[in-house]
């Protein structure tokens, strides 16, 4: 049965159970000579339907999580001792072959299997024709294990189906018997709703935790090869992709990348903060309704332009322009430079600052402005001395949010600032950032256990810590000063 059909079946079962239980509640009400139910029949229906579906869903999810563990345990137990003794990297290749074979087992005929066992020259091609793609031809013992695994899998599936149906039926009867005039189905459904909402937010939280831990563990792996101090305080970034076997692993100093990241972000904020803030002040304090309805969406469109388009613009228009302009002034500006990337990125984050600040400035109570005007202050005096100080915490929050956006930006930097990891104070030279290096370390031929690849996780972790710090700081500022005019 296909997944779509299964989903449809579940939905139909839900509606059916809901209808049945609702009717039962109604008939109970009538049988008790119109004695009122505690909850309306609809709630009884929902209650029983949820009791039917939720346990079954839980079984399915639990099974989906547990099954791979069980299968891989069977597989590792069956491996010949010489294979089991091999390092994890090679073992994973063997396990991959067995897994693929086991997955496609049902599509193979007895004759096919015999052919695989004989290990003829065309085995891989024959299997590929049946949608089984193997990195290398399987050996005879692998076929045996694959058969066992595939059998274990079908047993497990059968069992899963049985348990799921049992859970659904059990849940249904439990709920069915509880339907009565005194059942507080309304309150129970309320509680189940709460659980549903809680599990939705739990998904977000656990995803975050999962990402953090996976990055963390890979980083720890990296730091077992390259000392933390070399990474954090090294001033040279030169991760040689060494020939296999040679032990020259290169240098992984993060400082040039950190410097590039912060330097470009600094220029971006230098552009975005004044422009964004002033446009926000104009929009919220001076612009009339007609200007605002046109100008504000226009400004927000800036935020919707994909960053690659900004990068393109920087690469073919703004970079060369800046280079020629610098040339006419006698400055040696590289077409790819900190300045180019910073300015273009600044334009990109203007809408973040202006839009957020606009909302924050508009939220300053009119009574404060009235108070200031009533004392004979002009509009700009009022804005400078009353409105902006009152809105400052929110504005700082907006700026920090924009800053973390700038720090995480990749595409503009690749195209506008280059990929050379320089530690330079000259804004006219090329630099690069951590995000760019994460991309370049992970593209191309990969050997997953080398420091050259794993450094990407260490960079990711560093980036994460920086942006997290910024966000926490921003939240702290906003919280500390928020209540001032409430």
């Amino acid at each position, binding site marked *: 049965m296909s997944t779509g059909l299964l989903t449809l079946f579940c939905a139909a079962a839900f509606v059916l159970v809901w209808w049945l239980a609702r009717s039962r509640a109604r008939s109970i009400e009538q049988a008790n000579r119109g004695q009122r139910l505690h909850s309306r029949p609809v709630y009884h229906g929902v209650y029983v339907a949820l009791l039917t579906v939720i346990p079954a869903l839980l079984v399915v999810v639990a099974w989906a999580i547990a099954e791979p563990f069980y299968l891989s345990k069977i597989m590792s137990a069956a491996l010949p001792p010489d294979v089991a003794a091999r390092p994890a990297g090679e073992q994973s290749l063997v396990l991959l072959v067995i897994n693929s074979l086991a997955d496609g087992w049902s599509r193979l005929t007895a004759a096919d299997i015999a052919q695989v066992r004989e290990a003829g020259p065309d085995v891989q091609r024959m299997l590929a024709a049946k949608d089984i793609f193997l990195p290398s031809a399987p050996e005879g013992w692998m076929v045996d294990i694959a058969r066992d695994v595939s059998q274990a899998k079908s047993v497990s599936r059968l069992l899963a189906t049985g348990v799921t149906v049992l859970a659904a039926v059990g849940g249904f009867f439990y709920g069915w018997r509880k339907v009565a005039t005194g059942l507080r189905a309304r309150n129970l459904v309320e509680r189940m709703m709460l659980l549903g909402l809680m599990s939705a937010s739990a998904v977000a939280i656990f995803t975050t935790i999962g990402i953090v831990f996976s990055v963390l563990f890979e980083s720890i792996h990296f730091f077992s090869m390259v000392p933390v101090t070399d990474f954090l305080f090294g001033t040279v970034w030169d991760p040689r992709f060494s020939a296999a076997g040679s032990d020259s692993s290169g240098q992984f100093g993060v400082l040039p990348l950190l410097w590039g990241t912060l330097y470009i972000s600094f220029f971006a904020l230098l552009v975005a903060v004044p422009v964004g803030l002033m446009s926000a002040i104009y929009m919220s304090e001076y612009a009339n309704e007609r200007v605002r309805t046109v100008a504000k969406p226009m400004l927000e469109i800036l935020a919707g332009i994909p960053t690659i388009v900004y990068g393109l613009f920087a690469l073919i228009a703004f970079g060369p322009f800046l280079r020629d302009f610098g040339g006419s002034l006698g400055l040696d500006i590289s077409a790819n430079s900190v300045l180019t990337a910073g300015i273009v990125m600044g334009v990109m984050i203007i809408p973040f600052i202006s839009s957020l600040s606009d909302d924050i400035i508009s939220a300053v109570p009119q009574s*404060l402005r*009235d108070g200031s*005007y*009533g*004392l*004979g202050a002009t509009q700009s005096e009022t804005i400078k*001395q009353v409105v902006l*100080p009152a809105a400052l915490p929110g504005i700082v929050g907006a700026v920090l949010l924009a800053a973390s956006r700038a720090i995480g930006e990749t595409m503009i930097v690749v195209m506008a600032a280059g990929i050379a990891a320089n530690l330079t104070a000259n804004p006219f030279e090329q630099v690069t950032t951590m995000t760019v290096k994460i991309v370049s370390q992970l593209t191309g031929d990969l050997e997953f256990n080398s420091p050259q690849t794993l450094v990407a996780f260490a960079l990711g972790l560093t980036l994460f810590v920086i942006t997290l710090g910024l966000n926490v700081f921003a939240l702290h500022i906003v919280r500390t000063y928020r209540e*001032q005019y409430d």
Partner: protein
Amino acid sequence: MDAAVAEKPARFETVMTPAEPAIMKERKPKIVTEGVTVHYGDKQAIYPLDIKIPDRAVSAFIGPSGCGKSTFLRCINRMNDTIPTARVGGRITIDGEDIYDPALDVVQLRARVGMVFQKPNPFPKSIFDNIAYGPRIHGFARNRTDLEEIVVNSLKRAGLFEEVKDRLESPGTGLSGGQQQRLCIARAIAVNPDVILMDEPCSALDPIATARIEELIDELRENYCIVIVTHSMQQAARVSQLTAFFHLGTLVEVGDTEAMFTNPQERRTQDYIMGRFG
């Protein structure tokens, strides 16, 4: 009430009670208006309105909600300018000077006509900076000592100094509601105005804080022309010398407070004061 609402006078004759109020004989008129009208967009909020407001006295505007008394108050320091749709017609003079004269600087006018709002609105600054705000803008103080003197004097005149003298640097928003309102009065006094407009200054306060503010208003009347909008008839009776009754955008009756409350001429004034509507 129905009769009062239905019968809208064709001409807006204001009844004087008595024909020549005693307070107007004792004090010279500070604010004089002739045929003032206010429109919000297409809606007329105030019909041609003439009134003389005496100097060094408290004048109270009373009337049911939406009768235009706050709108009229906001004309006197041109706060209606900040509302884009508002249009003001007619003539308002303070000490004989037309305040809607295009040559007049609104900012200077508002320094002369201070305003205290319905809800206390201290700035999110320290108590000291709240008071110093106006003097700083207008450059009243030549140095820090001058400024401190202005701040202390204003706080003393607003009767707040004793309560806050040890914490002038703490935020003004941390004070109680009544203290905040007195802070706002001190802030208005600090720019040395001639007129102080108060828009329901006690409506957000408890009775004790209200009594304290009323006491303060009574003291301030020695030196300022005070105009107060209030919903409380008792308050008008307690603090004011002149009372003006507004209804549906017209000034119905104006006169000595005592006469207005004991012997109103207009039936609508009677009904309102007796609590029959509003």
